[in-house]
């Protein structure tokens, strides 16, 4: 006989576990330093069982953190065995290969004890504004230049904070007090989570989480299998070319869709680059899985079982599987291109059901003072999202990242820069039955009439625009220039002389379906809104225009 109370309790508990994580993530987000981190929700929180398997995770957060964290806890326990942990202990690391792919991301793991036994773990991760090294740029030739790495160790032992460790972090950071605050936030966030977890175990009279684990994993495995089975079995290949640091990078994928599971091999992708746009495999796995999951199984919560149904592998030493000591600061340039690579495979399995390519990696605008006044200003410039099978792509909206832009007023209050304009760039959305999302054009200069320094690390898709699908055309490629005549072509550091301005135009999203099939009212509307030019309307949607003129 099935025990009715247990069935109900499990259902209630699953909800509660997710709510506990959500609560932690929200608290972290508010306490985080750095506008970008807050806008992005560049953080995550999760509950793990005693074996270190992830049971639940906050919905808040970027895919990069959400999916890397699942593996972090077990990886950390490999360094500090569970049996050596005592109440009041907490572990920490920012190792890119154990945490979330670059040294900026700190992971803190805290064991939860009940009756002297570890019943589970709370983990949280967040982006710390600065940990030394070269700061935010792709200029490092190795991870050693990118900041201080903290190997897995105790951040707290038996309730006593490891001040030595914190001193090492603060001594290496340009913003030491903020860095300390962010790390302490992770610790207190976990502590609250631990007490929530033990409270609920008491409320439901649970000795351990094994019954919960079984229920969550069995349900999730079945649900994921059913969802993935929508895609026909087969082997599908795709490739995508990125600008790279100063030479093109090719990404390749071979996707095998099997019986309710998907295995991806990234073999054949370019070898590691000598600058910091390389991606550790954990971060590649995170974004590749995200692309697959968003299309096929968006409603299934993240946990060990639902993530296990998708595997992503690559031989070591590629740009998608960089090993220590390759530089990895701007790993999102590669990582965030992977969802489009995956969607291109799935397009072959499910033709007509997949959105077109999007602008991809976030364009980080990293400006700093190069004259008398020292400052840094970090913002993002977002391009267009690919057109969807049933609707136009979203304009100036990040995908796959979930980051929003810092408002112009806030950016100008925070640093002596002036945004001279920030508007949609017409004719940048890929033409199609559904139009790709529009890019934007931003013009920035110094408020003080001083030189500025710019890291171009994340300006990607300057040579080819995001591709369309089902006959849709590509979105416009990005363009970056300085008004003194400099054209930005690689990911290096550029100087914007006093009086000159930086002009950015992000990439537009790819179109979906043949332009000739676009609804004529939609074309007319785009025209009247100034989102496409008269010339483009005639050239790309000519048939429609002529038809309309005939009717007049």
């Amino acid at each position: 006989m099935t025990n009715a109370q247990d069935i109900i309790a499990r259902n209630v508990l699953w909800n509660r576990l997710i709510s506990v994580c959500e609560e932690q993530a929200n608290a972290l987000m508010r306490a985080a330093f750095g506008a970008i981190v807050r806008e992005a929700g560049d953080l995550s929180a999760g509950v793990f069982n005693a074996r270190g398997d992830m049971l639940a995770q906050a919905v808040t957060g970027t895919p990069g953190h959400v999916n890397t964290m699942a593996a972090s806890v077990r990886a950390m326990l490999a360094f500090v065995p569970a049996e050596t942990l005592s109440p009041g202990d907490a572990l920490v690391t920012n190792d890119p290969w154990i945490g979330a792919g670059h040294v900026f991301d700190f992971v803190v793991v805290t064991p939860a004890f009940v009756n002297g036994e570890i019943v589970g773990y709370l983990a949280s991760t967040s982006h710390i504004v600065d940990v030394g090294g070269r700061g935010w740029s792709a200029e490092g030739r190795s991870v050693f230049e990118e900041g201080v790495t903290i190997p897995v160790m105790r951040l707290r032992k038996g309730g006593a904070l490891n001040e030595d460790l914190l001193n090492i972090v603060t001594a290496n950071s340009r913003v030491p007090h903020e860095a300390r605050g962010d790390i302490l936030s992770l610790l207190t966030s976990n502590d609250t989570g631990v007490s929530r977890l033990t409270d609920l175990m008491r409320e439901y009279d649970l000795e351990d989480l094994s019954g919960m684990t079984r229920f969550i994993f069995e349900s999730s495995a079945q649900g994921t299998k059913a969802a993935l089975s929508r895609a026909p079995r087969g082997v599908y290949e795709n490739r995508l070319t990125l600008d790279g640091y100063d030479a093109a990078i090719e990404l390749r994928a071979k996707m095998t869709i099997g019986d309710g599971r998907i295995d991806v091999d990234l073999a054949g992708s370019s070898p590691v680059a000598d600058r910091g746009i390389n991606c550790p495999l954990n971060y590649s796995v995170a974004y590749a899985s995200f692309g697959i999951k968003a299309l096929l199984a968006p409603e299934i919560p993240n946990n060990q079982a639902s993530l296990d149904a998708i595997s992503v592998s690559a031989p070591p030493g590629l740009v998608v599987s960089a090993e220590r000591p390759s530089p990895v600061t701007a790993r999102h340039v590669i990582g965030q291109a992977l969802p489009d690579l995956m969607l291109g495979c799935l397009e072959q399995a499910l033709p007509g059901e997949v959105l077109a390519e999007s602008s991809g990696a976030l364009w980080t605008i990293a400006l700093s003072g190069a004259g008398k006044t020292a400052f840094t200003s970090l913002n993002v410039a977002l391009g267009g999202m690919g057109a969807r099978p049933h609707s136009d792509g979203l304009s100036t909206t990040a995908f796959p990242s979930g980051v929003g832009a810092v408002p112009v007023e806030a950016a100008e209050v925070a640093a002596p820069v002036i945004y001279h304009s920030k508007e949609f760039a017409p004719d940048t959305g890929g033409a199609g039955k559904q139009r790709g999302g529009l890019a934007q054009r931003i013009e920035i200069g110094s408020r003080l009439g001083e030189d500025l320094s710019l890291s171009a690390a994340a300006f990607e898709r300057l040579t080819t625009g995001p591709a369309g699908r089902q006959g849709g055309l590509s979105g416009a490629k990005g363009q970056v220039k300085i008004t003194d005549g400099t054209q930005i072509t690689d990911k290096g550091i550029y100087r914007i002389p006093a009086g000159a301005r930086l002009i950015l135009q992000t990439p537009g999203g790819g179109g979906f379906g043949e332009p000739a099939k676009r609804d004529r009212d939609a074309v007319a509307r785009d025209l009247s809104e100034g989102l496409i030019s008269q010339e483009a309307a005639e050239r790309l949607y000519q048939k429609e225009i002529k038809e309309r003129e005939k009717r007049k």
Partner: protein
Amino acid sequence: MLRLAIDIGGTFTDVVAETPEGLTSVKVLTSAQAPEVAALDGVDRLLHSLSKTHAEITGVVHGTTLATNALIERRGAKTALVTTAGFRDVLGMRTEKRFEQYALDIEMPEPLVPRPLRLGLAERILADGSVSIAPTEQDIDSLAARLRAQEVEAVAIGFLHSYKNPAHEVFVAERLRTQLGNDVTLCLSSEVAGEIREYERFSTVCANAYVRPLMSRYLGRLLSQLQDRGFDGSFLMMLSDGALTTLDQATRFPIRLVEGGPAGGVALAAHVAREVGSDKTLSLDIGGTTAKICFIEKGQPQTSRRFEVARAWRDVKGSGLPVRVPTVELVEIGAGGGSIANIDTLGRLKVGPKSASSEPGPAAYNRGGEDATITDAHVTVGNIASDGFAGGIIALAPERAPDAIARQIQNPLGMDAVEPAAAGIIELADETMANAARVHGVELGLDVSSFDLLVSGGGGGLHGARIADKLGIKRIIVPQNAGVGSAVGFLRSPVAFESAISEVEPLEEINAQLLRTRVEETLAYVRDIVAEAVPPDEIESSIKLELRYSGQGLEIPLSLPDPERFEEGFKNLAARFEERYLALVGFTLENISIELVSVSVGARERKATGPSDVPGAVTEDSQPSQRDIYDLNARRALTYRVIERAAINGHASRGPAVVSEAQTTTLVRPGWSVRRVGQGHLIMERAGG
């Protein structure tokens, strides 16, 4: 004294009259095309039943969802936005963020002002308020010509950094006024929502301009027709933050009216909290489709300036139009009586947010609804008696409830009986509401367990005790007439007005004297507004600040004493901030400056409602009837005594008991006791707590 409250909702218009003898009400169908028709009809009927005339009305208090509906249905004025050249797409770009990470098909709301009507003007004010480019009269005049040619009815003016220096907005408005005449509505972003963050500010001023012509015409008609009938009393409008304001202000800032209806419900809860002397109150209103949560401290509802209207995608947070006006901070949860329980694709039991609403309604309504709802679960476990449900308006078919639950929940989950399945649905609903309260408490930095729970709505009394258990709450308030609507709340609201100053600067760099001057100016402005309806000696003022560590997003609200002691209070701010921060986060930070983010200045009518502890009528239990209710913890049915509210006295009566009333049922679960206080409200307390 004869005061009237008029609450115009999407479906019904409620009119409530308050006389020294008590409250009388009438409900009529809303006349959507001309809402004043139904309102005036309701007033006529109510006056008739009271044998009173319009001339005897001393005051009218009015709340309406008309502005909200105009925004949702896009029935507002043809509106243009005049903005800084180079930034006409602020409205179209929004925050550039996806509000749902995994959904690829999300849609954003259409801006209220289409791109061709978003016009750039060469002008620029910098972050420090200094002028970089001044607008020329020639440019403004040619802009006016375009606006005239487009025949716009309303113009919103929103320039960058106008929260810091509104001079350009004011100058352009004055020039446009002379060019466009008085028939075109002009609204300035610095006046409507003078806060930093261009998207939210522009969105707010556009929404205000968009609904203002419609609202001012409507309010003009309503008032003049009341006056034609002989009315010459005061006329006040319900604002979104649970306060009242004058008609003149309401007409200038109609966007501040959008949440007036729900705010009325919260205002009533706040009033009851003041009556029973509850300083920290969590209001939980469980209706037919959703439950609403609001924290109330010292009788004042929590308000914020983060609100959005007209959500465009599955009612998801982030998919609406932001409006930065003071609004009661309500969290709405898809768990009401009609919320449907189902098994999702993972085999999990889920409750809501989909609702059977009132049509077809829960299975037990027998109006064609086949889905198992929370109400059906209550019927199945015995929480709701089948006779006299909802005051006898709805005749239940109780046997349909367990059938639906067996079919849709018990059998798919392989459970051995229907009662535990039903109890499970209720438990999950309780869990969902408790989680929402806990997460919202964390967001506000409040410790939920130190609050009293005030339950209202049809389902409040049924869920209260279990939710309180989950949250560690020890006292529950069940108001008299817990099912009564917002209109009564209008009558209990104070006249008040609030205005914000954006001032992002480190505390140590702020000149306290200069700030005091700005605060005093703003205070004089808001007091003048309140003084239009309230004698000056009954007005109290408040100065609320938000502070944070520079670079962090965690903004902590603190209040300051009146301007006379401003500098002194200002000096202590840093210490008070650190104390609050420590309590909230567990540590403080060193060498990071504390900055002021915003100052909000308010004036409010003093409402004295002291606690009353007069015990109610002492009546012995007259009818010792009993009811069996299935209990999930006990794993069997427990016997509850059924008692009438009137039979409860000032002495605690122990659970398990059911208090059965026309509109609501209150469960006094095992471990809880109940007593009645002077105004008729019930107080439930945890035994031994």
